């Protein structure tokens, strides 16, 4: 269905609003993302970055506009929701591994329950993924026995076990000690080359600049800039973006 010349948008968000009470966390947000694209989402704290990601797999319901993922509209239809959640994986700031399950079980749970994959197959697949993130030897440990960086790599493997077309990352390195940031970024960098669609909320400007195909800058619930990393980091259009960049650079 998709020819190589016209890239298909896998995510389309049109005029999306999200309110908490009378407060607009997202205001008329429109963006579409093509398959294989890696997008860095940047912006000050409280600007709606997490909220935007979370509306894309309906951890938050949007109040206005529409969201279509791979041709499926996100609405109250539970069948649509199931289908979308199978295609969209998420990696959280705080890892959120299941603390009562071993690393291996953390990864096999969803394929076995949701995709009804036989246990042996799910475990073989999980071991392959663990090898990919460099944690094969930790398979039988529990999450508390792992460092933050290791836990986040497991969380990435867990999301990949469902073969998602899209992976959402919400500040995946923000909760990590500095010396663990790189091991997670390395895994993400490798992923970016596999053709999976990635939306990454991040404060790692180096990563955004080097790995992303596109940068979106959020401010006060709206998209202020939507451009290439090159353009964004050398010459942002808006004063708010310039101020943000100056502040971030100053911080490092």
């Amino acid at each position, binding site marked *: 269905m998709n020819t190589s010349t016209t890239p298909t948008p896998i995510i389309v968000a049109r005029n999306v609003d999200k309110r908490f009470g009378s407060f607009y966390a997202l205001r008329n947000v429109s963006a579409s993302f093509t398959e294989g694209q890696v997008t860095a989402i940047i912006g000050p704290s409280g600007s709606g970055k997490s909220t935007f990601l979370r509306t894309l797999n309906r951890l938050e319901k949007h109040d206005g506009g529409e969201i279509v993922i791979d041709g499926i509209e996100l609405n109250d239809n539970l069948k649509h929701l199931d289908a979308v959640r199978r295609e969209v994986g998420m990696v959280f700031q705080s890892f959120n591994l*299941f603390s*009562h399950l071993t690393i291996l079980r953390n990864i096999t749970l969803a394929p076995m329950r*949701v995709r009804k994959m036989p246990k042996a197959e799910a475990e073989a697949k999980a071991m392959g993924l663990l090898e990919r993130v460099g944690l094969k030897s930790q398979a039988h440990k529990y999450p*508390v*026995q792992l460092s933050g960086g290791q836990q986040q790599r497991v969380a990435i493997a867990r999301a990949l076990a469902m073969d998602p077309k899209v992976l959402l990352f919400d500040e995946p390195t923000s909760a990590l000690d500095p010396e663990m940031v790189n091991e997670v970024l390395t895994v993400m960098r490798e992923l970016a080359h596999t053709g999976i669609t990635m939306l990454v909320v991040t404060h790692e400007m180096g990563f955004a600049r080097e790995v992303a195909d596109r940068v979106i800058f959020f401010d006060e619930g709206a998209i202020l800039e939507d451009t290439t990393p090159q353009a964004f980091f050398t010459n942002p259009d808006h004063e708010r973006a310039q101020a943000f960049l100056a502040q971030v650079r100053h911080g490092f």
Partner: protein
Amino acid sequence: MNWTKRYPGWTMFGAMVGLLVFLWGLAIPLSAAPAPIGPAAMQFAEGARITVWLTLIAGSVGVVLGVLAGMGKLSKFLPLRWVCDFYVWLIRGTPLLLQILFVWLVIPTVMPASVNLSDFACAAIALSLNIGAYNTECVRAGILAVPHGQIEAARALGLSPLQTFMDVILPQSMRVALPALANNLASLVKDSSLAYAISVVELTMVGYRVQAESYQPIPVFLTIATIYLILTTAFTTLTSALEAKLEVGQKR
């Protein structure tokens, strides 16, 4: 270290086998005892069996009731929350003896004549409802202790609400609730003695009868107390071994 903690599986197995052997063979050592215990050995053994049955039945049903009402109390559906709140309020605010008498006297008048509930069944129903209400609060606290991020992770992986509950919420909340549930079970061993009021011939009733015939309350009540202590010890060992078994993953 502690044997229970080091070999929880074997301890559970041992406590269970010990309990069964004790119930099975209780009459043998007792019959060797002098009057008034020896001649009544079979009665003591039968009383102990009834006590254990009441405990096991009401304990199991009570856990199911506790989980259902504990979930109900956290439901978004207001009437369900009211029903569960009312149930807990009613049971915890009235004496157990009254509840046992109520079930015994009132249920036969509202049931069709063809349904004939035994005294034992009435006691089991009342005790189940009673411990269920106390369990509700423990389960509710356990559910609230499960980190919300893990629930979001499960949903984002595509697990249904029921799968999320069974695979992520329930196991972790039971681990938190278990010490309190075990406490309730230990109380139940003793509370089951109130079934004597509706002429269920459990352990305390046996003791009462034997001493009334023999006019020797001291040896009779010492025997009864010893049997209760052995039973509560067996149940406590069983539950603390279960706790140790579930504690994996919390260890560093």
